[in-house]
């Protein structure tokens, strides 16, 4: 069969990928720069074709709790937002993680803090990878750098979420959400039947037909029992750290200078790397695809012979902390970032790299 190739925005690709994954529900609240997700879904009317539920909620707080419920019913459900909306969702995300429910969350980051700006940013790295909400939990965090990855990570995110019964987040920046690129859409899959769902998710609350009742809760007032629950969660996170690290390495073998960047910044850094190599500088690029679990080993390996690491982010320097930990502060690791919606050019990045390390 011929592949379905289209030109579209990253946010639109998310919506199409959801429908084609066989999603059961989407709950969202408008916010720039990700409103196209809800708009595209409403225009596509998947409730007519696949039976997927699409609902504009009254707030991000309501939306994330709808996702909590849908995930509790074993459904493939999703919400998307941008930074301020994501902040509002944090209590709900903690509940989803604590109740061990599979859900897909999408943050198309904009500049902050506060109401900030609608321009792109990567300053929610800490929020996504270090918790964000309360308590000891983790989010599988996927960072797409192209419209194709926006599309592909919908399926990957849900697959991982169901595999580990844990929320997964697509942490995109406004650039990836807004830019238009060629994308190959996946083959449509049908939604799971009621029987398939009951078999795959025997823990789901769907009514206790032919089984004992299910209870979804994150509450346990007995301290020793609560510690066991926490330990089990941590054991699961360890399994994810061991099995689900993903990254892309370009020219990192024996590189003298290593750039580490994710999302749209990795695209710009790739260009900077090419310019550098034309000038005879041995520069490599490592792009974390999973921000959690973090590709620490791959970075440590790529930086073995490096004189310096440059971490480029649209923030004041967040991922750099994980990069420093990855190399145990044994390699000179510096940060270059722009904020407020400003985006550096490849020349700018190369200039910074030369000034910091080459001179």
């Amino acid at each position, binding site marked *: 069969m011929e592949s379905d190739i289209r030109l579209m925005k990253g946010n639109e690709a998310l919506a199409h990928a959801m429908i084609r994954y066989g999603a*059961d*529900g989407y*709950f969202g609240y408008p916010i720039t720069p990700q409103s196209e997700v809800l708009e595209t879904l409403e225009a596509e009317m998947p409730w007519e074709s696949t039976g997927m*539920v699409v*609902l504009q*909620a*009254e*707030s991000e*707080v*309501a*939306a994330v*709790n*709808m*996702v*909590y*419920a*849908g995930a*509790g*019913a074993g*459904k493939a*459900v999703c919400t998307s937002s941008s930074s301020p909306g994501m902040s509002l969702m944090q*209590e*709900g995300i903690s*509940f989803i993680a604590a109740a061990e429910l599979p859900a897909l969350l999408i943050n198309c980051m904009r500049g902050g803090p506060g109401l900030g700006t609608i321009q792109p940013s990567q300053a929610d790295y800490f929020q996504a990878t270090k918790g964000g909400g309360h308590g000891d939990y983790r989010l599988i965090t996927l960072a797409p750098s192209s419209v194709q990855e926006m599309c592909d990570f919908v399926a990957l995110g849900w697959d991982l979420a169901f595999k580990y019964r844990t929320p997964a987040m697509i942490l995109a920046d406004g650039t990836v959400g807004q830019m238009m690129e060629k994308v190959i859409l996946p083959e449509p899959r049908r939604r799971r039947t009621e029987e398939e769902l009951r078999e795959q998710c025997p823990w789901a*609350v*769907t*009514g*206790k*037909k*032919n089984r004992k*009742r*299910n*209870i*979804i*809760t*994150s*509450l346990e007032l007995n301290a020793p029992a609560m510690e066991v629950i926490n330990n089990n969660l941590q054991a699961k996170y360890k399994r994810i750290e061991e099995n689900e690290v993903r990254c892309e390495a370009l020219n990192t073998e024996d590189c003298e200078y290593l750039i580490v960047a994710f999302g749209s910044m990795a695209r710009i850094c790739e260009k900077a790397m090419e310019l550098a190599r034309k000038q005879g500088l041995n520069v490599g690029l490592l792009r974390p695809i999973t921000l959690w679990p973090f590709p620490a080993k791959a970075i440590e390996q790529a930086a073995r012979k490096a004189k310096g690491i440059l971490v480029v982010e649209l923030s004041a320097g967040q991922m750099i902390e994980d990069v420093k930990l990855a190399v145990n502060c044994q390699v000179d690791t510096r940060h270059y970032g722009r904020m407020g919606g400003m985006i550096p050019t490849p020349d700018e990045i190369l200039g910074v790299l030369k000034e910091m390390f080459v001179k």
Partner: protein
Amino acid sequence: MNMKQEDIIKPENCVYRKPSLLTDENMHYCPGCSHGVVHKLIAEIIEEMGMEDKTVGVSPVGCAVFAYNYIDIDWIQAAHGRAPSVATALKRLNPENLIFTYQGDGDLAAIGTCETIHAANRGENIAIIFINNAIYGMTGGQMAPTTLLGMKTSTTPYGRRADLNGHPLVMAPLMAQLDGTCYVTRQSVHTPAAVRKAKAAIRKAFENSMAGKGTSMVEIVSTCNSGWKLTPAQSNEWLVENMFKKYPLGDLKNE
């Protein structure tokens, strides 16, 4: 009539029994609290409707957080105030399920007012059981949005004052004027007669939601004898004398 012990325990002489859906778990509610009575009614109704295999209850944050320990159906515990959002998604994704929320006044009328009003305004086919005891029972008796003027709580130790604390929030009329609601009623469980009426009301709310009529809310004007610092009997008197004046019983909307 002088019946012998052996006759009394014969199955055909049974006039009342514990609903089969009430579990054997010891209830954590204070003796005299309205929560326990309402739980029993819900268990009876689900059993009578034959819906035990299709019902999912949404428990709140509040004294009823552990409702899931007592009624033998599927349950999901919601974050404080968010039960209507949870119920919305459950019902939309599985329309054949009977979905109800069980919420206190702090949960429904303070932190969750937005979710309550919007779920009802969308006409979600869910039933909302609203336990209005005019206080935050679980956290130790603080002021609730429904606390009466003059009423002493741990955060209004000299009595609630309108100028300092605002007025009691009266939810039922607010809910009744929304186009999405089909049934809004106030009931109580302080006498056997009241309990029977409350049961009929909850049953109607459950039936409405299965018939796709929209949102139903059954407010139970309740007691919290621990929070009110009264005996259970005194609480019932105080309920009639004070609570019913601000929250009179009866249907506000029945379509």
